[in-house]
């Protein structure tokens, strides 16, 4: 019997409550926008009030959920009676305020701001990775900028930073809005980059002017997602994959992560949150991949290994709380910022790397292929996975377990390059032996999913019975911190789920300070989990993230196989190859170790 007690944080996680999130009714005041009377909440900013009314005010530096910085001034509006214009993003509403949001003066000012931003911006939209999805480009089009009015000589030579395995920085395209700096500091608490220099020489960069690879950057890619221009992008592996696909000697195997099938639709212009798993598999085959596997299969395997590890730690008095190890940005975070917690991190490889290791061992043996002739590609919602697959621990005899990682965005590009229409393809199923998954492995893509899958299987492992209600509501939703106390077969378990490394840092500090009621902590690097990963489609807001998450839970609701330990192919894999969880072969293929990193923190 599971007894679930809700904590304070849990109360807000139910789906229907997620959208409101308001506990007390604020005082309403009346304001006027462009001659129309609207209502606003006392204390909120002009921008919030206008957006609720469907009045679009452009912004470049504004970030949902963070304090306004008012840096870009694009959101200026006029207040009748006041002299100048004010930035809507940071100016509070006042009773009786009369606003002009698109007067000639306002529109001229916005256009001039964009023209000034363009004055030292390279004219290479045709070659830019962000073309078509660039906020600056869109603003220039919308505001009618059709010629270069200002020309500024470049103050200093700005070299591209290609040192990182995950992220490419092009400072010449940077407009210094500061969104990357803020997400890195305020959401992820990493602070790998900051403003460097002053005035016309100001740039964004890591400490000591080196490359990102020498910095404390954890490769999460959240900076890419918030960047309004092409100054930040993932390091593309599309050409490498195309070369592999064209090589007749190579067998090209692909795996796709749980969160990709619910976000790829946006790359094809379909509605956020549409699950196109089968059509994506069909597209991957059309592109030319010889085998298509589902990373959710090794997510199931992770539950078997990690669950067994947890039980062993609890039984033998091992290091607790145990921390999950699926998210490679988080792993580098621990290695750089909290090396004293390395023994707490599960030794399990991430599902991607488990799959990679199995492809080049079990699968290669079964298909009588030389691992050197297998090119293992994975489609991930993540840029840190590119870094993870290049880690020396993640290879065998100098052959990497996963050769190339493509983000959801890169897969979108590949599909468009091949002229495939995702909405028109017939759905296909992934290949065996790693194509069958439980929906517990699928919900790994949302923050809380690993924990939910683990609790389902732990309940069975400890009591021999399945949970009556598999849906564990307190672990669901977009909250950054979720906690669960459960009594499973007489064992009291304290579990926490955090996403966004700022939240992880707070929790680790609590544990360091002596908090000891937790046994198992799931950490996802990106806020909300992989559904909002750094490799996901550009231009998604929290609504899109919510829809992607909802889609994963719908898949779970409708699935037949909802627990990892019942996955027949996982059972067969243990019978035919691995032996038992934490066995010798598992240890060699599915577990890893971590190393402290000497980076400026």
């Amino acid at each position: 019997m599971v007894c679930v007690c809700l904590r304070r944080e849990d109360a807000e996680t139910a789906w229907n409550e997620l959208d409101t999130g308001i506990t007390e009714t604020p005082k309403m005041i009346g304001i006027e926008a462009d001659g129309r009377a609207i209502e606003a909440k006392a204390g909120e900013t002009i921008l919030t009030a206008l957006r609720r009314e469907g009045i679009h005010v452009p912004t470049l530096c504004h970030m949902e959920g963070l304090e306004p910085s008012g840096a870009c001034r694009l959101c200026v509006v006029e207040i009748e009676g006041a002299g100048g214009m004010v930035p809507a993003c940071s100016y509070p509403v006042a009773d009786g305020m009369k606003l002009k949001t698109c007067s000639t003066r306002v529109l001229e000012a916005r256009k001039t701001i964009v023209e000034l931003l363009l004055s030292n911006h390279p004219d290479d939209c045709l070659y830019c990775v962000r073309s078509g999805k660039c906020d600056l480009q869109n603003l220039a089009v919308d505001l009618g900028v059709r010629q270069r009015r200002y020309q500024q000589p470049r103050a200093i030579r700005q070299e591209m930073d290609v040192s990182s395995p995950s992220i490419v920085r092009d400072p010449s395209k940077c407009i210094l809005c500061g969104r990357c700096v803020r997400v890195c500091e305020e959401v992820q608490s990493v602070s790998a980059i900051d403003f460097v220099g002053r005035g016309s020489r100001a740039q964004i960069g890591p400490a000591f002017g080196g490359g990102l690879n020498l910095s404390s950057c954890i490769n999460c890619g959240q900076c890419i997602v918030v960047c309004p221009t092409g100054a930040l992008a993932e390091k593309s592996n599309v050409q490498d994959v195309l070369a592999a696909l064209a090589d007749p000697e190579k067998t090209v195997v692909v795996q796709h992560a749980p969160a990709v099938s619910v976000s790829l639709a946006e790359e094809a212009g379909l509605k956020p949150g549409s699950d196109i798993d089968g059509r994506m598999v069909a597209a991957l085959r059309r592109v030319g991949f010889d085998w298509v596997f589902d990373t959710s299969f090794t997510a199931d395997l992770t539950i078997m290994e990690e669950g067994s590890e947890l039980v062993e730690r609890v039984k033998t008095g091992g290091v607790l709380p145990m921390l999950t190890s699926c998210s490679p940005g988080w792993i580098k975070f621990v290695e750089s910022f909290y090396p004293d917690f390395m023994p707490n991190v599960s030794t399990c490889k991430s599902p991607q790397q488990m799959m990679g290791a199995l492809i080049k061992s079990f699968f290669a043996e079964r298909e009588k292929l030389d691992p050197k002739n297998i090119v293992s590609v994975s489609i991930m919602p993540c840029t840190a996975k590119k870094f993870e697959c290049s880690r020396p621990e993640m290879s065998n005899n100098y052959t990497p377990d996963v050769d190339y990682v493509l983000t959801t965005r890169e897969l979108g590009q590949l599909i468009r390059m091949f002229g495939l229409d995702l909405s028109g393809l017939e759905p296909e199923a992934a290949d065996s032996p790693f194509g069958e998954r439980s929906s517990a492995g699928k919900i790994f893509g949302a923050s809380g999913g690993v924990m939910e899958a683990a609790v389902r299987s732990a309940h069975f492992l400890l009591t021999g019975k399945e949970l009556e209600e598999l849906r564990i509501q307190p672990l669901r939703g977009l909250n950054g911190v979720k906690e669960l106390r459960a009594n499973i077969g007489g064992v009291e378990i304290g579990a926490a789920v955090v996403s966004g490394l700022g939240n992880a840092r707070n929790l680790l500090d609590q544990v360091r300070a002596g908090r000891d009621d937790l046994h198992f902590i799931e950490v996802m690097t990106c806020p909300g989990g992989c559904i909002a990963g750094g490799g996901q489609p550009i231009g998604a807001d929290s609504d899109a993230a919510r829809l992607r998450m909802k889609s994963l839970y719908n898949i779970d609701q409708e699935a037949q196989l909802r627990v990892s330990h019942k996955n027949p192919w996982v059972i067969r894999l243990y019978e035919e190859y691995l032996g038992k969880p934490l066995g010798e072969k598992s240890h060699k293929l599915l577990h890893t170790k971590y190393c402290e990193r000497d980076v400026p923190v």
Partner: protein
Amino acid sequence: MSENAKKVGAILDKYSHAGRDALIPILQEIQEALGFLSKDAIAQTGKRLGLPASKIYGVATFYNQFRFQPKGRHHITICRGTACHVKGSDKVLDSACSTLKLQPGQTSRDRMFSLETVACMGACGLAPVITINEEFNAKVNPRKIVRLAQDCKEHSTEEKK
């Protein structure tokens, strides 16, 4: 613990109750003691104040006064104030950069020269003015820079003998 780390530690101890608002005076004292801000010193300061290295580097690069490489044996500062600019200090700077193969803020590999620009030395009557190890040189021109650099080199070789 290295000699420098001890020096930085002593400075940080003086500010043991201070918060992040004490960052700039701390950096100034460290530069006074070490001649520059080393990576280790920045890391040490960051640990004490709870500030990331990137933030400290960002603050320090905002000001011209901080340098991140040790000074050379001959530390040359070139005035870029208004009067000196009018009198052609931009060409003096260009000449210094090409003669020494250095950019402002850098130190040559052999630690012989380091170069820096300053806003105004308050010696506008001598424009364009430069200092070499805090010794003023008045009314310099691009050619004079080449000669002064040569003198410095010869001086150092003699010292060695």
